């Protein structure tokens, strides 16, 4: 009994640092834009909330439906829109970073599967401190 308790206690000690890191970043509202068959690229959107006191950085992402993912920002200048790549995204402490249409987005290139509305696909987000966080993104128009 005691042995079991100790091992459970030790396990929880081991598990807690990573668990708290994972809990420090909340990723919600993930979705991917549905596009007609033949589309070469689409955009993914989500919300990242950093509840920790330290900043973190989103350094890369991957998904099963596309070959390569990049972070892009639609930049508006003099009423014109163009896209710029961002190599990494800083998530400041206590702040919420929103990937949304017309702004920051995950550019998904080399689409491998039809972007069918209603499907749910995983996106793996790699953070500098929090490690990898997996979210399910729904495909919608």
């Amino acid at each position, binding site marked *: 009994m005691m042995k079991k308790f100790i091992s459970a206690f030790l396990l929880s000690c081991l598990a807690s640092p990573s668990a708290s890191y994972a809990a420090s970043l909340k990723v919600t509202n993930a979705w991917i834009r549905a596009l*007609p068959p*033949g589309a070469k*690229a689409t*955009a993914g959107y989500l919300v990242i909330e950093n509840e920790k006191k330290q900043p973190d950085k989103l350094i890369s992402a991957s998904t099963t439906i596309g070959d390569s993912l990049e972070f892009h920002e639609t930049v*508006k200048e003099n009423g014109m*829109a*163009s896209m710029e790549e961002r190599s990494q995204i800083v998530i400041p402490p206590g702040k919420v970073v929103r990937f949304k249409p017309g702004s920051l*987005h995950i550019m998904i290139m080399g689409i491998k599967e039809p972007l069918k509305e209603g499907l749910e696909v995983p996106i793996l987000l790699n953070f500098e401190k929090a490690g990898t966080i997996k979210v399910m993104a729904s495909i919608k128009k």
Partner: protein
Amino acid sequence: MKKLLAIVLLSMFTIATLIILRQRTPKFAQILDPQISIKSEGMKDLEGQAVKDLFQDRWTVLAFGFTSCPDICPNTLSIFKKLLEMGQNRPDGIQYAFVTIDPQTDTTSKFKNYLGFFDLRIHGIYGSPEATEIFAKSFASTFGKDPKSNRLYHTLNYFIVSPDGKWAAYIKPESLNEETLMKEIQAVKTNLEWKGFL
């Protein structure tokens, strides 16, 4: 006596019109005074109709973009779809159009397929690169390719064309939701229709 009554009625009508105009002044849309002629030679919709005829006798909201644009353009088209759905319950005589700035890549079949994915009622407009450039210039707009990144850039604004086929107003759609956009488009329409009476 009749004259006095006529004067009273006329001034009441003018005041009422002015009140309506004041109430229906758009908050975000910019109305152009005077309206500007559009150079649409060589521009057609996907049914083969000349743009000049497409614009005639209807209010049109139009945006520029291209089919391989992953962020802004699909967003514009899904907004247009929602605006069309909102207009369905109360027919408003407003049509929506999307102009490709990349006519060499956006073949008619590709363009039709792309627009149909969102809403078949959205009119696809295309022309030669030269005709498209002249067309965009009539809306004081431009587009092109960034030589560094090789990415296309284009205007974000929604342009409102009056039933005379002239550029009447524009809206910067940024951060406006569909309800606000619809109110703005309606406000432009009412404002310009009532101005015609004065």
